[in-house]
């Protein structure tokens, strides 16, 4: 395992700026998650680390050495592709064993067999080893793809939305499993997703991507509590953070540049003895908790996250307030103001 880093890396495809001057260092043994909507440049960033794309400018290093122009095979990385990339006419076993059989990595047949069945058990595809890759379900194929990365012990694991095609239950199981594997191996992983829950639960640090730019790289807690930009604030938390103009709900900034307040739904208190009059427009129950969409006088809409047993129904009128000290403030350029 080794660290990996990008220094001022830029990649264009014709007119599109896929990765814009990105600086990113992934420490040895760190689980880095790249989060961003579709088209943000997540895949491109991974491909740059893997060597499947060459940067237009900037430097890529793995384990301290400059690999910017090195071929993918020489970088010793493992890549899980967004699409399952299996050898279609070979069995699951052959697919998993393939990376171990590559030239220059001569491993005994006995050792290969052992390693493959270990990984297959872990990913719960042990009973499918004799199946051909084309005879698997989408989820099974994806697990074989993950397995093909895990059989090796590369410098860095690069994973491009590896769990996106699995059902919710399996995704949750594999998430836990992946985190455990990463801790056990001390693996360096760069993991791409647009699922914030995955990002929050897996990451040691999250990198937020916006149109090719890394807007913030920090621990999940930090990004959640002190998002560097409005965009970063919106990427984490469900429902999304409330954005309120200064002055609304009695929110007064301590800084003249502060224009917008970000208030997390759980920081909106509902049914307070004093506060602002609001009407409940919609209620969404999510099991243990519920989300209320409220409209304050003047038409401002606010989401609040409440306990499921709170007696709040649609159409009710009540009073709300923002928990003191909760808001984060952004300036006219949507940047965080450090108070």
């Amino acid at each position: 395992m080794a660290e990996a880093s990008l220094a001022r890396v830029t990649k264009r495809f014709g007119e599109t700026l896929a990765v814009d001057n990105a600086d990113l260092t992934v420490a040895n043994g760190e689980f880095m998650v790249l989060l961003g909507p579709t088209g943000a440049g997540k895949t491109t960033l991974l491909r740059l680390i893997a060597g499947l794309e060459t940067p237009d400018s900037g430097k890529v290093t793995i384990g301290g050495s400059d690999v910017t122009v090195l071929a993918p095979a020489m970088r010793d990385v493992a890549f899980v592709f967004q699409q399952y990339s299996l050898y279609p006419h070979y069995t699951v076993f052959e697919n998993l064993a393939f990376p171990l059989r590559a030239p220059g990595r001569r491993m005994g047949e006995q050792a290969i067999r052992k390693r493959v069945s270990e990984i297959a058990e872990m990913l719960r595809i042990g009973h499918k080893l004799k199946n051909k890759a084309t005879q698997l379900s989408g989820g099974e194929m994806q697990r074989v793809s993950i397995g093909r990365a895990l059989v090796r012990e590369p410098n860095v694991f690069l994973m491009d939305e590896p769990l996106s095609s699995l059902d919710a239950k399996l995704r949750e199981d594999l998430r836990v499993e992946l985190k455990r594997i990463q801790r056990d191996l001390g693996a360096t992983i760069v993991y791409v997703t647009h699922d914030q829950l995955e990002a929050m639960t897996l990451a040691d640090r999250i990198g937020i991507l916006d149109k090719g730019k890394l807007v913030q790289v920090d621990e999940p807690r930090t990004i959640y509590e002190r998002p560097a930009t409005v965009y970063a604030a919106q990427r984490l938390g469900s429902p999304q953070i409330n954005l309120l103009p200064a002055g609304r709900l009695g929110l007064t900034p301590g800084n003249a540049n502060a224009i917008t307040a970000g208030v997390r739904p759980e920081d909106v208190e509902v049914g307070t003895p004093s506060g602002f009059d609001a009407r409940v427009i919609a209620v969404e129950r999510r099991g243990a908790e519920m989300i209320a969409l409220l409209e304050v006088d003047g038409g401002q809409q606010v989401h609040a996250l409440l306990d499921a047993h709170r007696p709040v129904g649609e159409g009710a009128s009540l009073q709300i307030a923002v928990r003191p000290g909760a808001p984060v403030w952004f300036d006219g350029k949507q940047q965080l103001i450090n108070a």
Partner: protein
Amino acid sequence: MTDQTIQRIASDTPDVAPRFVRRVRGLSDRAITWLFIGPTLAILLAINIFPLIWTVYLSFTNYRANQPGREVKWVGTRNYERLLGSEDIWGYLQATAHFVVWTMVLQVLVGFGLALLINRNFRGASFWTTLILIPMMLSPAVVGTFWTYIYQPQTGIFSYIIDFFAGTGAIDMIGSVTLAPWAIIIVDTWMWAPYIMLLCLAGLRSIPDYLYEAAEIDRANALQKFWYITLPRVLPFLMLAVLFRGIENFKMFDMVVELTSGGPGSTTELASINLKREAFEKWRTGFSSAFAIILFVTVFGLGNIYVKALNKVKS
């Protein structure tokens, strides 16, 4: 057509349209089904199934198509016995097998090779593709005639080039007993390797890049990439192309007749050429019917075995 125009047409032809609709409505689903299938079935029976059965019948007789008045005698399996016992016939079948096997082998090698080259998408690749495809679009008779000039020992370019590089002196491809079978194989390969290339190209184009990228990261070498990714993906296309061309070449006639007319001696007398001689020069209709049936059963049997293998590769 919009609803309005349909309505307008309907009201312009007040008598015909409703009556026709009523009549069609009066038919049952079953009747309509037969109405659609019927004509096709009739044509199929008339021009495919009936002649086949008729040929089977004729193959057991001594019928001669040029003597319609003559009494037709049932001869049992005598035609078949004579065919299978004849050294000449085995010779023609052997020549055909030689032709089919070698044209397929060479065309697969050349066609697949060309497809791999063209698939590299170098500059001008589409121009070269068009150029390579030209032979395939020519008429076989033209190709045959055209190659008789190329093969001309004194003035032809083929003999000149071979002589230039190998110093063999003038060579007569068509006149030589050993070379003539290869002469027709070369021409057929020249003409039809592009077809194999085209189908292989379709297979190659269907392979997504990320498969190769994944292999690259796994440190696969070029041979492994070919073996694990390219070949399995292209094989169904390739086998289909070979099936089409193999059946065609089993029946090969026009190009070879133009080029060698079966000669010298009967070295390039393929089964279909001999069949034509028996049927329309010697007018032994019964005998040649039996020959046709034997060829048909052979192609049909081989084709079926082949299709089974193809389906296995596909799944």
